[in-house]
């Protein structure tokens, strides 16, 4: 349940940034290999955002948070090596008793394969795909975040998507076919 914020700096910060938590979480999961590390990445992102919030104002929150997450991931987590995600982070408590267990298990396997394939992309392509397709940013927002031309981002996204599709083809997975 979303807390009710009002009043001081903390509340203003949370009211402006928490609505984008899902996007930041998706981006973090696209960059680091396991749920625990992704949670740390999100926390570090929000801490750094908190520090700069007074200067940021209220505009472009999602792309701003995504940029911070990207930079933190690059500096802190790339040093650990890029590896496929090792878990899907779905706790037992999330299991719904009446859910189709077989379908759920299949979905988990497919998502794990996609995550592993994503980790095989070159860094530039992976970052572009994560920010656009998982984070939901526009090519223009990503171009500004990365300080590269918009056309370059479009090219990286396209190449990344195609390579991702080819990798999944080799594994026999038919996303969107």
């Amino acid at each position: 349940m979303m807390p009710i914020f009002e009043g001081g700096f903390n509340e203003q910060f949370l009211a402006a940034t928490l609505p984008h938590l899902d996007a930041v979480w998706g981006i973090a999961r696209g960059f680091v290999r396991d749920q625990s590390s992704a949670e740390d990445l999100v926390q570090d992102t929000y801490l750094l955002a908190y520090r700069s919030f007074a200067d940021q104002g209220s505009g472009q929150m999602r792309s701003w948070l995504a940029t911070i997450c990207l930079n933190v991931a690059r500096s802190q987590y790339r040093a650990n090596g890029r590896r496929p995600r090792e878990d899907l982070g779905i706790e037992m408590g999330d299991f719904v008793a009446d859910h189709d267990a077989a379908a759920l298990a299949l979905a988990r396997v497919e998502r794990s394969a996609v995550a592993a394939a994503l980790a095989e992309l070159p860094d530039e392509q992976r970052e572009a795909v994560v920010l656009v397709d998982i984070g939901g940013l526009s090519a223009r927002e990503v171009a500004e975040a990365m300080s590269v031309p918009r056309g370059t981002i479009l090219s990286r996204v396209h190449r990344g998507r195609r390579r991702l599709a080819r990798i999944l083809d080799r594994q026999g997975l038919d996303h969107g076919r």
Partner: protein
Amino acid sequence: MADNASHPVLATLLDGGTDDRERAELERHLLACDACWEAVRDDRRGRLAAEDLRETAPAALRDRVVLVTEACGPSRGRSRRPRRRIAPVAMCAGAALAAVGALSLGQQGGSQARSGEKPTIVSVVTRLASSPTAHPVPALLNETKQQASMSTTRSYGSSVVVARSPTPFAMPAGAVPMTSATSPWVARRGRVTLVCFNVPHPILVASVIPPDRLIPLARQLGAHRP
């Protein structure tokens, strides 16, 4: 793998802003060009696969972000900028890192949450914001090198940090003593309630659970030697 991203057709597609005329031209070209057809198909498949990785952030992560913000920032209601951020390493997940971070915070001589705050309180609140672990982890909680172990459990749907020590936990500023004989106390830090019983075994618990539930829980936990 051939790169068709520079082809005018794909440039139009990726740009996302096609009018009826452009769309008709695109469709005519795709029917005639296998390479571009394949490129568009793979682009779509890759996009759908990546979009399938979108997921809702765990509820516990949302709570963690809120708790960390409240633990590190100025008090609610005061609209002033934070003085300094806590180094990210102090907030890293994992029991060992949480303990190291707690020690680091303690050695800084005060928390970012409140000037003069006892490091023990900052440590416990910080630990509450970290990834939970059920296994007690040794930690040095303040500059007096108070020996303690911290673990995390769950009750009433929320995380509860449990700190145990062979020596009593000192009462922080703003705490409300529950009795005068055994020196248990209750304190609040933002949404976090801290409850301490030093008899029969020193125990400090912290959670967002309401005090009327946390106090009996702390009493039960403290009645048993770990």
